[in-house]
Protein backbone atom coordinates (compact mmCIF):
# COMPACT_ATOMS: atom_id res chain seq x y z
CA UNK A 1 0.00 0.00 0.00
CA UNK A 2 2.74 2.45 0.93
CA UNK A 3 3.98 3.10 -2.61
CA UNK A 4 0.46 4.24 -3.45
CA UNK A 5 0.40 6.60 -0.50
CA UNK A 6 3.73 8.09 -1.49
CA UNK A 7 5.38 8.02 -4.90
CA UNK A 8 2.76 6.29 -7.02
CA UNK A 9 0.01 8.80 -6.54
CA UNK A 10 -1.58 8.54 -9.96
CA UNK A 11 -5.30 8.38 -10.59
CA UNK A 12 -6.08 4.91 -11.94
CA UNK A 13 -8.67 6.35 -14.33
CA UNK A 14 -6.22 8.74 -16.01
CA UNK A 15 -5.58 7.18 -19.36
CA UNK A 16 -2.95 9.51 -20.72
CA UNK A 17 0.13 9.20 -18.52
CA UNK A 18 2.35 6.74 -16.72
CA UNK A 19 1.14 7.71 -13.25
CA UNK A 20 -2.33 6.65 -14.27
CA UNK A 21 -1.19 3.52 -16.05
CA UNK A 22 0.82 2.23 -13.11
CA UNK A 23 -2.01 2.92 -10.65
CA UNK A 24 -4.51 1.24 -12.92
CA UNK A 25 -2.26 -1.78 -13.32
CA UNK A 26 -1.94 -2.12 -9.56
CA UNK A 27 -5.70 -1.84 -9.07
CA UNK A 28 -6.30 -4.50 -11.72
CA UNK A 29 -3.87 -6.87 -10.02
CA UNK A 30 -5.78 -6.31 -6.77
CA UNK A 31 -9.08 -6.93 -8.54
CA UNK A 32 -7.81 -10.27 -9.81
CA UNK A 33 -6.59 -11.22 -6.32
CA UNK A 34 -10.01 -10.52 -4.82
CA UNK A 35 -11.71 -12.47 -7.61
CA UNK A 36 -9.40 -15.45 -7.23
CA UNK A 37 -10.31 -15.85 -3.57
CA UNK A 38 -13.96 -16.44 -4.46
CA UNK A 39 -13.59 -18.24 -7.78
CA UNK A 40 -14.88 -15.29 -9.78
CA UNK A 41 -13.66 -13.46 -12.85
CA UNK A 42 -11.89 -10.14 -12.23
CA UNK A 43 -14.47 -8.37 -14.41
CA UNK A 44 -17.13 -9.37 -11.88
CA UNK A 45 -15.58 -7.45 -8.99
CA UNK A 46 -16.81 -3.92 -8.30
CA UNK A 47 -14.77 -2.06 -5.67
CA UNK A 48 -16.81 -0.18 -3.10
CA UNK A 49 -16.21 1.65 0.18
CA UNK A 50 -16.97 -1.52 2.09
CA UNK A 51 -19.43 -4.32 2.62
CA UNK A 52 -22.11 -1.92 3.87
CA UNK A 53 -22.10 -0.11 0.55
CA UNK A 54 -21.98 -3.44 -1.30
CA UNK A 55 -25.00 -4.70 0.64
CA UNK A 56 -26.89 -1.49 -0.10
CA UNK A 57 -26.01 -1.79 -3.80
CA UNK A 58 -27.11 -5.40 -4.01
CA UNK A 59 -30.40 -5.07 -2.16
CA UNK A 60 -31.52 -1.68 -3.40
CA UNK A 61 -29.91 -1.92 -6.82
CA UNK A 62 -31.39 -5.28 -7.84
CA UNK A 63 -34.82 -4.42 -6.49
CA UNK A 64 -34.82 -1.09 -8.31
CA UNK A 65 -33.69 -2.52 -11.64
CA UNK A 66 -36.34 -5.23 -11.73
CA UNK A 67 -39.01 -3.09 -10.03
CA UNK A 68 -41.44 -3.22 -12.91
CA UNK A 69 -41.82 -7.00 -12.73
CA UNK A 70 -40.49 -8.06 -9.32
CA UNK A 71 -41.82 -6.67 -6.05
CA UNK A 72 -40.55 -9.14 -3.43
CA UNK A 73 -37.35 -9.83 -1.54
CA UNK A 74 -36.59 -12.66 0.90
CA UNK A 75 -34.06 -12.34 3.69
CA UNK A 76 -33.51 -13.53 7.27
CA UNK A 77 -33.94 -11.88 10.66
CA UNK A 78 -30.27 -12.30 11.53
CA UNK A 79 -28.78 -10.32 8.64
CA UNK A 80 -26.41 -7.44 9.24
CA UNK A 81 -28.11 -4.14 9.97
CA UNK A 82 -27.20 -2.68 6.60
CA UNK A 83 -29.12 -5.44 4.82
CA UNK A 84 -32.11 -5.17 7.14
CA UNK A 85 -32.16 -1.40 6.92
CA UNK A 86 -31.90 -1.48 3.13
CA UNK A 87 -34.84 -3.88 3.08
CA UNK A 88 -36.79 -1.47 5.26
CA UNK A 89 -36.08 1.23 2.71
CA UNK A 90 -37.45 -1.05 0.01
CA UNK A 91 -40.61 -1.58 2.02
CA UNK A 92 -41.08 2.17 2.19
CA UNK A 93 -41.02 2.11 -1.62
CA UNK A 94 -43.70 -0.56 -1.84
CA UNK A 95 -41.59 -3.71 -2.14
CA UNK A 96 -42.69 -6.68 -0.03
CA UNK A 97 -39.96 -8.13 2.14
CA UNK A 98 -40.14 -11.47 3.91
CA UNK A 99 -37.86 -11.62 6.96
CA UNK A 100 -37.53 -15.35 7.62
CA UNK A 101 -37.00 -16.52 11.18
CA UNK A 102 -34.08 -18.80 11.99
CA UNK A 103 -33.99 -21.94 14.08
CA UNK A 104 -32.54 -22.03 17.58
CA UNK A 105 -29.16 -22.83 16.11
CA UNK A 106 -29.26 -19.71 13.98
CA UNK A 107 -29.60 -21.52 10.66
CA UNK A 108 -32.29 -20.66 8.14
CA UNK A 109 -34.36 -23.51 6.75
CA UNK A 110 -33.94 -24.02 3.00
CA UNK A 111 -37.53 -25.27 2.86
CA UNK A 112 -38.71 -22.06 4.50
CA UNK A 113 -36.90 -20.05 1.85
CA UNK A 114 -38.43 -22.21 -0.88
CA UNK A 115 -41.90 -21.68 0.56
CA UNK A 116 -41.37 -17.94 0.79
CA UNK A 117 -40.44 -17.57 -2.88
CA UNK A 118 -43.06 -15.97 -5.10
CA UNK A 119 -43.20 -15.60 -8.88
CA UNK A 120 -42.27 -11.94 -8.36
CA UNK A 121 -39.32 -12.49 -6.01
CA UNK A 122 -36.32 -10.51 -7.20
CA UNK A 123 -33.70 -11.47 -4.64
CA UNK A 124 -32.87 -13.78 -1.77
CA UNK A 125 -30.28 -12.36 0.63
CA UNK A 126 -28.76 -14.64 3.27
CA UNK A 127 -25.41 -13.89 4.89
CA UNK A 128 -22.70 -16.52 4.68
CA UNK A 129 -21.22 -16.24 8.20
CA UNK A 130 -23.03 -14.33 10.91
CA UNK A 131 -20.98 -11.56 12.49
CA UNK A 132 -22.42 -12.00 15.99
CA UNK A 133 -22.65 -15.74 16.45
CA UNK A 134 -20.43 -17.16 13.71
CA UNK A 135 -22.90 -19.64 12.22
CA UNK A 136 -22.47 -20.62 8.57
CA UNK A 137 -25.66 -20.72 6.52
CA UNK A 138 -26.35 -23.53 4.00
CA UNK A 139 -25.08 -21.57 0.98
CA UNK A 140 -24.84 -24.48 -1.45
CA UNK A 141 -28.47 -25.55 -0.94
CA UNK A 142 -29.73 -21.97 -1.05
CA UNK A 143 -27.75 -21.23 -4.20
CA UNK A 144 -29.06 -24.34 -5.92
CA UNK A 145 -32.63 -23.49 -4.89
CA UNK A 146 -32.40 -19.95 -6.18
CA UNK A 147 -30.84 -21.05 -9.45
CA UNK A 148 -33.59 -23.60 -9.97
CA UNK A 149 -36.27 -20.99 -9.29
CA UNK A 150 -34.52 -18.23 -11.29
CA UNK A 151 -34.16 -15.87 -8.35
CA UNK A 152 -30.95 -13.95 -7.69
CA UNK A 153 -29.01 -15.11 -4.65
CA UNK A 154 -27.08 -12.50 -2.72
CA UNK A 155 -24.92 -13.31 0.25
CA UNK A 156 -23.13 -10.95 2.61
CA UNK A 157 -19.73 -12.60 2.63
CA UNK A 158 -17.93 -10.04 4.79
CA UNK A 159 -17.20 -12.50 7.61
CA UNK A 160 -16.72 -15.47 5.32
CA UNK A 161 -14.15 -14.17 2.83
CA UNK A 162 -10.79 -15.76 3.33
CA UNK A 163 -12.04 -17.77 6.28
CA UNK A 164 -14.17 -20.45 4.67
CA UNK A 165 -13.66 -21.61 1.10
CA UNK A 166 -15.98 -19.77 -1.26
CA UNK A 167 -16.60 -20.56 -4.91
CA UNK A 168 -19.33 -18.44 -6.44
CA UNK A 169 -19.69 -20.90 -9.30
CA UNK A 170 -20.10 -24.02 -7.18
CA UNK A 171 -22.37 -22.23 -4.72
CA UNK A 172 -24.51 -20.53 -7.39
CA UNK A 173 -23.99 -17.13 -5.81
CA UNK A 174 -25.06 -14.18 -7.97
CA UNK A 175 -23.99 -11.30 -5.74
CA UNK A 176 -21.65 -11.22 -2.79
CA UNK A 177 -20.60 -8.40 -0.49
CA UNK A 178 -16.97 -8.38 0.58
CA UNK A 179 -15.07 -6.39 3.18
CA UNK A 180 -11.34 -5.77 3.33
CA UNK A 181 -10.92 -4.99 7.00
CA UNK A 182 -12.46 -8.29 8.08
CA UNK A 183 -9.47 -10.11 6.57
CA UNK A 184 -6.76 -7.82 7.85
CA UNK A 185 -6.98 -5.40 4.95
CA UNK A 186 -7.50 -1.64 5.29
CA UNK A 187 -10.75 -0.07 6.43
CA UNK A 188 -12.70 1.88 3.84
CA UNK A 189 -12.70 -0.57 0.98
CA UNK A 190 -14.70 -3.61 -0.01
CA UNK A 191 -16.27 -5.02 -3.11
CA UNK A 192 -19.45 -6.39 -4.58
CA UNK A 193 -19.21 -9.50 -6.70
CA UNK A 194 -21.75 -9.19 -9.53
CA UNK A 195 -22.23 -12.25 -11.71
CA UNK A 196 -21.93 -11.75 -15.45
CA UNK A 197 -23.14 -15.12 -16.67
CA UNK A 198 -26.13 -15.20 -16.33
CA UNK A 199 -25.98 -11.45 -16.08
CA UNK A 200 -27.20 -9.72 -12.96
CA UNK A 201 -28.36 -6.19 -13.58
CA UNK A 202 -28.59 -3.58 -10.90
CA UNK A 203 -29.25 0.12 -10.65
CA UNK A 204 -26.20 1.89 -9.28
CA UNK A 205 -26.38 3.76 -6.01
CA UNK A 206 -23.78 6.26 -7.10
CA UNK A 207 -23.84 7.84 -10.54
CA UNK A 208 -21.12 9.87 -12.20
CA UNK A 209 -18.09 9.13 -14.33
CA UNK A 210 -19.08 5.56 -15.08
CA UNK A 211 -16.22 3.81 -13.27
CA UNK A 212 -16.57 0.13 -12.31
CA UNK A 213 -18.67 -0.71 -15.39
CA UNK A 214 -21.01 2.15 -14.51
CA UNK A 215 -22.08 0.34 -11.38
CA UNK A 216 -20.11 2.50 -8.96
CA UNK A 217 -18.83 5.84 -10.12
CA UNK A 218 -16.05 7.62 -8.30
CA UNK A 219 -12.27 7.57 -8.27
CA UNK A 220 -10.90 4.35 -6.86
CA UNK A 221 -8.45 4.47 -3.96
CA UNK A 222 -5.40 2.60 -5.32
CA UNK A 223 -3.77 2.23 -1.90
CA UNK A 224 -6.89 0.69 -0.38
CA UNK A 225 -7.63 -1.53 -3.37
CA UNK A 226 -4.06 -2.81 -3.41
CA UNK A 227 -4.26 -3.47 0.33
CA UNK A 228 -7.49 -5.40 -0.17
CA UNK A 229 -5.96 -7.48 -2.96
CA UNK A 230 -2.87 -8.26 -0.94
CA UNK A 231 -5.01 -9.29 2.03
CA UNK A 232 -6.93 -11.65 -0.25
CA UNK A 233 -3.72 -13.14 -1.63
CA UNK A 234 -2.42 -13.77 1.89
CA UNK A 235 -5.76 -15.28 2.93
CA UNK A 236 -5.73 -17.60 -0.06
CA UNK A 237 -2.28 -18.84 0.92
CA UNK A 238 -2.89 -19.10 4.64
CA UNK A 239 -6.51 -20.25 4.83
CA UNK A 240 -5.62 -23.81 5.76
CA UNK A 241 -3.03 -22.79 8.34
CA UNK A 242 -5.40 -20.16 9.79
CA UNK A 243 -8.22 -22.66 10.08
CA UNK A 244 -6.03 -25.11 12.00
CA UNK A 245 -4.67 -22.42 14.32
CA UNK A 246 -8.02 -20.77 15.02
CA UNK A 247 -9.68 -24.14 15.55
CA UNK A 248 -7.06 -24.93 18.17
CA UNK A 249 -7.52 -21.58 19.91
CA UNK A 250 -11.31 -21.89 19.91
CA UNK A 251 -11.14 -25.35 21.49
CA UNK A 252 -8.70 -24.02 24.08
CA UNK A 253 -11.01 -21.10 24.88
CA UNK A 254 -14.14 -23.19 25.15
CA UNK A 255 -12.51 -25.98 27.15
CA UNK A 256 -10.94 -23.41 29.44
CA UNK A 257 -14.30 -21.84 30.16
CA UNK A 258 -16.45 -24.94 30.45
CA UNK A 259 -13.96 -26.87 32.58
CA UNK A 260 -13.95 -24.17 35.23
CA UNK A 261 -17.47 -22.76 35.27
CA UNK A 262 -20.86 -24.26 34.66
CA UNK A 263 -23.91 -22.97 32.82
CA UNK A 264 -21.96 -21.66 29.82
CA UNK A 265 -24.07 -21.67 26.66
CA UNK A 266 -22.85 -21.33 23.10
CA UNK A 267 -25.18 -19.21 21.01
CA UNK A 268 -25.63 -20.67 17.57
CA UNK A 269 -25.04 -24.01 15.92
CA UNK A 270 -22.02 -25.91 17.20
CA UNK A 271 -21.61 -27.80 13.94
CA UNK A 272 -22.18 -25.23 11.19
CA UNK A 273 -19.97 -22.49 12.48
CA UNK A 274 -16.81 -20.54 11.87
CA UNK A 275 -14.46 -21.29 14.76
CA UNK A 276 -13.09 -17.76 15.09
CA UNK A 277 -16.36 -16.25 16.23
CA UNK A 278 -17.57 -17.63 19.55
CA UNK A 279 -20.59 -16.14 21.25
CA UNK A 280 -21.28 -17.49 24.73
CA UNK A 281 -23.74 -16.65 27.47
CA UNK A 282 -23.08 -17.10 31.18
CA UNK A 283 -26.22 -17.79 33.19
CA UNK A 284 -26.99 -15.86 36.32
CA UNK A 285 -24.90 -12.73 35.82
CA UNK A 286 -25.29 -9.30 34.34
CA UNK A 287 -23.69 -8.85 30.93
CA UNK A 288 -22.57 -5.25 31.11
CA UNK A 289 -20.72 -5.88 34.38
CA UNK A 290 -18.86 -8.78 32.83
CA UNK A 291 -18.03 -6.75 29.76
CA UNK A 292 -16.59 -3.92 31.88
CA UNK A 293 -14.57 -6.44 33.88
CA UNK A 294 -13.16 -7.83 30.65
CA UNK A 295 -12.10 -4.48 29.33
CA UNK A 296 -8.48 -5.60 29.03
CA UNK A 297 -9.64 -8.12 26.46
CA UNK A 298 -11.15 -6.65 23.33
CA UNK A 299 -14.41 -8.57 23.31
CA UNK A 300 -17.91 -7.34 22.63
CA UNK A 301 -21.48 -8.20 23.40
CA UNK A 302 -23.16 -7.94 20.04
CA UNK A 303 -21.17 -6.36 17.24
CA UNK A 304 -19.46 -3.00 16.82
CA UNK A 305 -22.54 -1.70 15.04
CA UNK A 306 -24.79 -2.43 17.97
CA UNK A 307 -22.40 -2.08 20.89
CA UNK A 308 -23.52 1.46 21.58
CA UNK A 309 -27.07 0.52 22.47
CA UNK A 310 -28.05 -1.31 25.62
CA UNK A 311 -30.64 -3.50 23.95
CA UNK A 312 -29.80 -7.16 23.73
CA UNK A 313 -28.81 -8.21 20.27
CA UNK A 314 -31.58 -8.77 17.74
CA UNK A 315 -29.63 -11.76 16.44
CA UNK A 316 -29.81 -13.51 19.80
CA UNK A 317 -33.46 -12.60 20.07
CA UNK A 318 -34.06 -14.20 16.66
CA UNK A 319 -32.43 -17.36 17.97
CA UNK A 320 -34.97 -17.40 20.75
CA UNK A 321 -32.28 -16.98 23.37
CA UNK A 322 -33.77 -16.15 26.74
CA UNK A 323 -33.68 -12.39 27.45
CA UNK A 324 -31.57 -12.91 30.59
CA UNK A 325 -29.04 -15.04 28.75
CA UNK A 326 -28.97 -12.67 25.81
CA UNK A 327 -27.90 -9.88 28.15
CA UNK A 328 -24.95 -11.93 29.41
CA UNK A 329 -23.62 -12.84 26.00
CA UNK A 330 -20.00 -12.18 25.14
CA UNK A 331 -18.57 -12.57 21.65
CA UNK A 332 -14.96 -13.74 21.52
CA UNK A 333 -13.21 -13.16 18.21
CA UNK A 334 -10.14 -15.26 17.41
CA UNK A 335 -7.95 -14.65 14.42
CA UNK A 336 -4.70 -15.31 12.63
CA UNK A 337 -2.73 -13.17 15.06
CA UNK A 338 -4.30 -14.29 18.32
CA UNK A 339 -1.93 -16.11 20.64
CA UNK A 340 -2.47 -18.96 23.08
CA UNK A 341 -1.28 -16.68 25.90
CA UNK A 342 -4.06 -14.24 25.04
CA UNK A 343 -6.66 -16.99 25.04
CA UNK A 344 -5.42 -18.24 28.42
CA UNK A 345 -5.55 -14.72 29.82
CA UNK A 346 -9.09 -14.21 28.49
CA UNK A 347 -10.18 -17.50 30.05
CA UNK A 348 -8.57 -16.63 33.39
CA UNK A 349 -10.19 -13.21 33.44
CA UNK A 350 -13.60 -14.46 32.35
CA UNK A 351 -13.66 -17.31 34.87
CA UNK A 352 -12.55 -15.05 37.69
CA UNK A 353 -15.20 -12.44 37.01
CA UNK A 354 -18.03 -14.83 36.25
CA UNK A 355 -17.35 -16.48 39.62
CA UNK A 356 -17.14 -13.10 41.35
CA UNK A 357 -20.38 -11.88 39.80
CA UNK A 358 -22.14 -15.14 40.52
CA UNK A 359 -21.00 -15.04 44.15
CA UNK A 360 -22.81 -11.75 44.61
CA UNK A 361 -25.81 -12.61 42.47
CA UNK A 362 -29.06 -13.45 44.29
CA UNK A 363 -30.43 -14.77 40.99
CA UNK A 364 -27.59 -17.26 40.72
CA UNK A 365 -28.17 -18.35 44.32
CA UNK A 366 -31.83 -18.97 43.52
CA UNK A 367 -30.93 -20.85 40.36
CA UNK A 368 -28.58 -23.10 42.35
CA UNK A 369 -31.41 -23.82 44.77
CA UNK A 370 -33.56 -24.92 41.85
CA UNK A 371 -35.89 -21.93 41.83
CA UNK A 372 -37.39 -21.23 38.44
CA UNK A 373 -36.56 -17.59 37.88
CA UNK A 374 -39.40 -17.22 35.42
CA UNK A 375 -42.01 -18.10 38.00
CA UNK A 376 -41.05 -15.28 40.34
CA UNK A 377 -43.50 -12.43 40.80
CA UNK A 378 -41.25 -9.42 41.07
CA UNK A 379 -43.79 -6.74 41.82
CA UNK A 380 -46.20 -6.74 44.72
CA UNK A 381 -49.92 -6.60 44.20
CA UNK A 382 -51.52 -3.77 46.18
Amino acid at each position, binding site marked *: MLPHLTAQYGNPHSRTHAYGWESEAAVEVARAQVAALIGADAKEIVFTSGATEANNMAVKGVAAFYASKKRHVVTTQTEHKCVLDSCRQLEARGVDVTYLPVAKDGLVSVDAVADALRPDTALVSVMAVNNEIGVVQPLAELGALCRARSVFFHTDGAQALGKIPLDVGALNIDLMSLSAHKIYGPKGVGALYVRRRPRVRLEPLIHGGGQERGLRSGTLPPALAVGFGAACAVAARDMGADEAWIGRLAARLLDGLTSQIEQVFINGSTSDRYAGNLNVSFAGIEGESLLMALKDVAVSSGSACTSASLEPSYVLRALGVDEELAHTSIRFGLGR*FTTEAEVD*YAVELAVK*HVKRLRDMSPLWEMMQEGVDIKSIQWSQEH
Partner: protein
Amino acid sequence: MSSPSTAAAAVSRTDIVRLYRALLTAGRGFADYNFRAHARRRVVETFREERDPGSVAEAYAFGVNQLGVVRRQATISRMYEAAPLVIESPGRPPAGGAPQ
Protein backbone atom coordinates in the same frame (compact mmCIF):
# COMPACT_ATOMS: atom_id res chain seq x y z
CA MET B 1 11.10 -14.03 -12.07
CA SER B 2 14.35 -15.44 -10.63
CA SER B 3 17.49 -14.68 -12.60
CA PRO B 4 19.10 -17.53 -14.56
CA SER B 5 21.85 -17.92 -11.97
CA THR B 6 19.57 -18.50 -9.01
CA ALA B 7 17.36 -20.82 -11.02
CA ALA B 8 20.31 -22.93 -12.07
CA ALA B 9 22.02 -23.05 -8.67
CA ALA B 10 20.29 -25.40 -6.26
CA VAL B 11 19.29 -24.01 -2.89
CA SER B 12 21.66 -25.45 -0.31
CA ARG B 13 20.87 -26.43 3.22
CA THR B 14 23.07 -23.60 4.44
CA ASP B 15 21.02 -21.09 2.46
CA ILE B 16 17.84 -22.42 3.97
CA VAL B 17 19.13 -22.29 7.51
CA ARG B 18 20.45 -18.79 6.93
CA LEU B 19 17.08 -17.66 5.59
CA TYR B 20 15.29 -19.28 8.54
CA ARG B 21 17.49 -17.46 11.04
CA ALA B 22 17.14 -14.18 9.16
CA LEU B 23 13.37 -14.47 9.16
CA LEU B 24 13.22 -15.21 12.86
CA THR B 25 15.52 -12.29 13.65
CA ALA B 26 13.54 -9.93 11.44
CA GLY B 27 10.28 -11.09 13.01
CA ARG B 28 11.53 -10.18 16.45
CA GLY B 29 11.74 -6.59 15.25
CA PHE B 30 7.97 -6.05 15.12
CA ALA B 31 6.79 -3.53 17.69
CA ASP B 32 3.39 -5.21 17.71
CA TYR B 33 3.04 -8.20 20.07
CA ASN B 34 0.64 -10.10 17.82
CA PHE B 35 2.68 -9.67 14.67
CA ARG B 36 5.81 -10.70 16.52
CA ALA B 37 4.14 -13.86 17.81
CA HIS B 38 2.59 -14.67 14.45
CA ALA B 39 5.86 -14.18 12.58
CA ARG B 40 7.70 -16.55 14.91
CA ARG B 41 5.00 -19.19 14.81
CA ARG B 42 4.47 -19.04 11.07
CA VAL B 43 8.16 -19.12 10.17
CA VAL B 44 8.78 -22.15 12.38
CA GLU B 45 5.68 -23.91 11.03
CA THR B 46 6.54 -23.23 7.41
CA PHE B 47 10.14 -24.39 7.63
CA ARG B 48 9.05 -27.56 9.45
CA GLU B 49 6.64 -28.54 6.66
CA GLU B 50 7.44 -31.54 4.55
CA ARG B 51 8.43 -30.29 1.14
CA ASP B 52 9.05 -32.23 -2.04
CA PRO B 53 12.47 -31.35 -3.54
CA GLY B 54 10.92 -29.84 -6.66
CA SER B 55 9.20 -27.04 -4.77
CA VAL B 56 12.14 -26.03 -2.59
CA ALA B 57 13.47 -23.36 -4.96
CA GLU B 58 10.09 -21.70 -5.20
CA ALA B 59 9.56 -21.82 -1.45
CA TYR B 60 13.01 -20.35 -0.90
CA ALA B 61 12.34 -17.49 -3.32
CA PHE B 62 9.08 -16.79 -1.55
CA GLY B 63 10.90 -16.82 1.78
CA VAL B 64 13.42 -14.26 0.52
CA ASN B 65 10.56 -12.07 -0.67
CA GLN B 66 8.83 -12.35 2.69
CA LEU B 67 12.07 -11.48 4.49
CA GLY B 68 12.00 -8.13 2.71
CA VAL B 69 8.37 -7.64 3.72
CA VAL B 70 9.04 -8.46 7.37
CA ARG B 71 12.08 -6.17 7.57
CA ARG B 72 10.20 -3.22 6.04
CA GLN B 73 7.08 -3.74 8.09
CA ALA B 74 9.02 -4.22 11.34
CA THR B 75 10.83 -0.93 10.72
CA ILE B 76 7.58 0.89 10.03
CA SER B 77 5.93 -0.63 13.09
CA ARG B 78 8.69 0.81 15.24
CA MET B 79 8.03 4.26 13.78
CA TYR B 80 4.46 4.24 14.98
CA GLU B 81 4.30 2.29 18.20
CA ALA B 82 1.16 1.73 20.18
CA ALA B 83 1.10 1.31 23.96
CA PRO B 84 2.10 -2.18 25.12
CA LEU B 85 -0.69 -4.67 25.62
CA VAL B 86 -1.74 -5.98 29.00
CA ILE B 87 -0.47 -9.40 27.97
CA GLU B 88 3.02 -8.04 27.38
CA SER B 89 3.79 -6.75 30.88
CA PRO B 90 6.34 -9.05 32.55
CA GLY B 91 4.52 -9.63 35.82
CA ARG B 92 1.30 -9.07 34.06
CA PRO B 93 -1.47 -7.57 36.13
CA PRO B 94 -3.53 -10.10 38.06
CA ALA B 95 -6.86 -10.65 36.39
CA GLY B 96 -8.32 -7.82 38.43
CA GLY B 97 -10.31 -6.03 35.76
CA ALA B 98 -12.82 -3.38 36.79
CA PRO B 99 -12.81 -1.98 40.32
CA GLN B 100 -15.49 -3.25 42.67
